[in-house]
């Protein structure tokens, strides 16, 4: 079982629990009111129940191995010959996710970089996973820093820190980009739209 499959299983289990809890909470809110018409608990029970049922179905489906059918996209395109890399990757991604469906979401199509494939900066998958963790941590710190230094300063700092320390860009252009972005944000949101951005304890801007 790959990491993604394990993640999917865990997600379905979590959703099953959420759905189940929603059902029990919904029952507490009252499924019907006097006269037999539906009450405030009806939709929570219905939606939560559906979430739970489909999550359980998904768990069962994941634990049972099956052979993948070609996707609709492949059937339409008739791609028995391998198409160029971008499309092959896209189709494969679709197919790996699920047989028999074409995505209409706007997710961008990138090469799927699994294993120890290296990107243009020579970063491996595990390094990029670590980067993601670091960026998430920086965002949390930024949100906390808003209380102290204010919204704009916190986010301009975030821009510099991500560009310089995570993305390894040079300091000067990073600072320039961050200041310009902060300035444009100030112009649009504070000066033009009069949004009272939190100034934090420092109360500067």
């Amino acid at each position, binding site marked *: 079982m790959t990491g993604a499959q394990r993640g999917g299983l865990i997600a379905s289990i979590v959703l099953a629990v959420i759905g189940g809890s929603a059902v029990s909470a919904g029952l507490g809110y009252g499924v019907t009111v006097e006269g037999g018409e539906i009450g405030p608990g009806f939709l929570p029970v219905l939606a939560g129940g559906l979430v739970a049922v489909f999550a359980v179905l998904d768990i069962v489906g994941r634990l049972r191995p099956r052979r993948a059918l070609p996707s609709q996209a492949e059937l339409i395109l008739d791609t028995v010959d391998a198409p160029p890399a971008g499309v092959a990757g896209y189709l494969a991604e679709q197919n790996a996710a699920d047989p028999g469906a074409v995505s209409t979401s706007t997710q961008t199509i990138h090469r799927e970089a699994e294993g120890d494939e290296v990107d243009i900066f020579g970063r491996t998958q595990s390094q990029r996973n670590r980067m993601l963790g670091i960026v998430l941590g920086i965002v949390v710190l930024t949100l906390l820093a808003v209380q102290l230094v204010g919204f704009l300063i916190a986010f301009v700092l975030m821009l510099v820190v991500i560009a310089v320390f995570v993305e390894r860009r040079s300091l000067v252009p990073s600072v320039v980009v961050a200041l310009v972005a902060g300035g444009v944000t100030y112009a*649009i949101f504070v000066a033009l739209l009069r949004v009272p951005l939190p100034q934090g304890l420092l109360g500067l801007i």
Partner: protein
Amino acid sequence: MLDNLALGFSTAFTPENLLWCFIGVLLGTIIGLMPGLGSTTGVAILIPLTLTLEPVTALIMLAGIYYGAQYGGTITSVLISTPGEAASVVTTLDGYQMAKNGKAGSALAISAIGSFVAAIISLALLMWLAPPLADLALNFGPVENLAIMILGLIIVVSFAGGSLSRGLMMAAAGLLISTVGVATGFSDARFTFGSVNLLGGIPFVEVMIGLFAVGEVLHQIRLGADAPIRTRFRDMVISRRELKQSAGPILRGSGIGFVLGILPGAGSTLASFMAYGIEKRVSPRKALFGKGAIEGVAAPESANNAAANANFVPTLALGIPGGGTTAVLLGAFTVYGLQPGPRLFETQPTLIWGLLVSFFIGNVMLLVLNLPLAPVFAQMLRIPYGYLYPIILLTSFVGAYSVSNNMFSVVLVFVFGVVGWLMKELDLPMAPLVLGLVLGPLFEKALVQTSALGQGSFGIVLQSPISVTILLFAVALMVGPKIAARFAVRRRPAAVAAHDSTPSDRQHEDVS
């Protein structure tokens, strides 16, 4: 009809609306060509900026982003074989080959022209079809509305990618999220866990920005950076012969795109695949497909644009979005205090017709922008993602804050950003979740009214022939594709057997 058009023109041709239309299509083109930034993300991030505008102006701009992105997505498909939008995936097949043959200019020109022709054709059809459909839908009571909403959810699920059960699970999750807070008609607060911030429910814009903007950024960080792009090409001159070769594919693509786009949920991606597949079958130059045939660019590019416009038929006339971006746009309607649905044609004629006429104007602007300027836009691709994504994060958070002037919104965006990233990693479709969230309150209202009409029983749903027809159609959509796929596999066993590993199988072997 003519009155409506005149009303639309007088609305859309004000200097302010023209300006915002231009800003929308320009931003849309740029957003469309940035890998990692799609039209859904773009619209979601920019909703907060439009809150101070008139609803019609705001929607003109947001819609401009949507169809502008269809033009922009092509540029990257042709130049670097990386589609900026899912709907441009097929264009990489022949578009990139044309670019390699030194015909990038022709490829971009024909897709701009094809998109334009498709847009004009589909807009005319849209204006002709949507009002009578809305009229029809106006006679619908709560029973039929309930059926329509169930149909909409199922349609979006069946085309949104991912398995059917996971899509339905996400739609139900969206409905569940919509129940948070105090619902209209009931006095009780639900799922607020004692938080004052949750009394008003989980606001739509924050969820959108979180899922589509922050989630996408987090996803891209894990995927890693792509090589920076360097392109240079000479001219956008397209020969008369190429235009002649493309006329048929453009018209066929427009037709296919419109028909598929009008089905809520089918969306422009499917339309582009279909148009390419059909063109490959009927073309006299079959052998050239995949090697740089201009028809292979013209047909899918026309189809995805026609579908993008046709998507507005169900969105405006029934209040059922045709795809992810129209789902977000529909949410924008509610943000401006407009209830989406057939009544809009009666209550907001200025808005609807102004919006529709602005599509014409926007497409003319896009043609003028794209024919000479596509190479200039391509330079945007040189902005390193390392600078871009922190700015997207900043824009997302500041935008969310400006909606409510409350840090709670910012926290919500972050939470839904992580949720969106997990959904992407796990291939859980987002469009059904969004639709469930948007339709939730309307759905609950229809449920309450239906149960009141039936005195507590839903049997009355089966007494209305219209709702029964709609529900049967929904069931057919759910089951149909699976059956069709099975037939298609059975019909072509030889082809599959001859190449005992399709690209997907190979991928599976690589992964496992």
